[in-house]
């Protein structure tokens, strides 16, 4: 099983969700995050006092899928989340050691 973590721009959530549903991904976890990479922050000015805000709002999406679905998931997220502008985000793929469905106690690929 593979875990795919994707940091994306918040407004891209609906597109990414639909793209994943289309390839058969049943569920996902979404976490509100903030971060920066090469996309620098922005500045806000309040009564002449300027503050540089390094962190920008992002969303982190996590899905766990069977090994054979992983590359399709990466492709789907990439296409849905891309704007072509700096700050589009990143995707990480890692190995999942174990998965358990809490309700039934199932383990392994049938749990995801």
């Amino acid at each position, binding site marked *: 099983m593979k875990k795919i973590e994707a940091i994306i721009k918040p407004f891209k959530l609906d597109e990414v969700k639909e793209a994943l549903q289309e390839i058969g991904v049943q569920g996902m976890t979404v976490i509100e995050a903030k971060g920066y990479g090469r996309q620098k922050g922005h500045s*806000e*000015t309040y009564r*002449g*006092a300027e503050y540089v805000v390094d962190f920008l709002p992002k969303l982190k999406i996590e899905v766990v899928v069977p090994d054979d679905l992983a590359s399709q998931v990466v492709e789907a997220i990439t296409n849905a989340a891309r704007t072509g502008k700096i700050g589009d985000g990143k995707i990480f793929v890692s190995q999942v050691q174990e998965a358990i469905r809490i309700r039934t106690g199932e383990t392994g690929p049938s749990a995801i």
Partner: protein
Amino acid sequence: MKPGYRAYACVGVGAVTAWGSAAAPAAQPLSRHQVALQLDTGATAWMITATALVLMMTLPGLALFYGGMVRRKNILATMTQQVAISALVTVLWFLVGYSLAFGVGSDALQPWIGGLDAALLNGVRPDTAHNLAKGLPEYLFFAYQLTFAIITPALITGAFAERMKFTGLLLFMTLWHVLVYAPVAHWVWGGGFLGKANVLDFAGGSVVHVNSGVAGLVCALFLGPRRGYGREMMAPNNLVYTTIGAALLLVGWIGFNAGSAGAADSIASVALLNTILAPMAAALTWMAVEWRERGKPTLLGLLTGVVAGLVAITPAAGFVEPKAALIIGAVSGPVCYASAVWLKNRLKYDDSLDAFGVHGVGGLLGALLTGVFATAAVNPSVGEHGVLQQAYGLVVTILWSALATFVILLVCKHTTGLRVTPEQEIEGLDYTLHGEALHE
């Protein structure tokens, strides 16, 4: 018993004794500040309303206005200051404040301070009126003036936001009420020497705004800047609250200015109109300056412009024509922008919420322009007046406020202490001073 507590205990015993011995029977003599009430029902109805409006300016107007501007970890503490000051000043006004400001003690002292004849509302009865407001029950006059006594120190908190000890605040405000607010109110309104010198201050440009603004500056300089000032992120936590607060201030200010007419008449009406014209003009001119200087017009800028205009029109509201109000407002926008933004950033003092920049400077400007634009055509009580008289009143107020505030700060520093510890400041005052926090 700790020294401060002894004083409170004495006052407490005195209060209970006076209360217990309050006599009732008819035909009691009038105190020197009193006349027999000649009830003006229209004025009374309006002034009861105005009292509510001005109280609302502090609670929750200023609480929200300031609360939204500080960092999230200090929002509750900032609001706590407003509520605590309201409670403290109410009791102090009852005990001594009203009497010192509006009472008459001895002839020799009258130019400087009232007496204690009306302390604990002694002699104030349903059938008495203050000679300044013959048509209003004295209870009402007391209450209306109380709301001014409350908001004036509440404004100062903007200067030392996010770093003041609560115990220091309480002691500071107690001393400031008695030593600064009551005397200045007496000098301008209560029959003291500034009023007698024809210094015009319709609703408190000097008594409230210059007074609190200058005190604020002294506090900001004395306490020093917040940790990380100029480096760390200190953006307002919620401008929605600030907007609501500013709107409550604007609407409440109708009670502040139009209520200072003390009657339901043309003067109150021109004060009302001026109180709307000036802030709107100021909002536009502030916005214009900011747009040009910073590239974008901001919500905070518009709101601050509104407040600057309100402050500037306060001494003038019932003395000037509407077109003068527009001018006063329009001028106050850029002037207060210069003091709150440019001057503060240039000299690097941390008047955190611009108590001096907006209230001090706005009040000063308004007071001077009152000397220019006041006219008997609007208000027959406008006699000999001029910019020089206004300047005289300002200099006296500024000097006394600065000096007395400084001394009070020294007293507080060496008793309760003034500034929270660096650890408290970093963690936030909500939790460290009050044990409370916001929860999602």
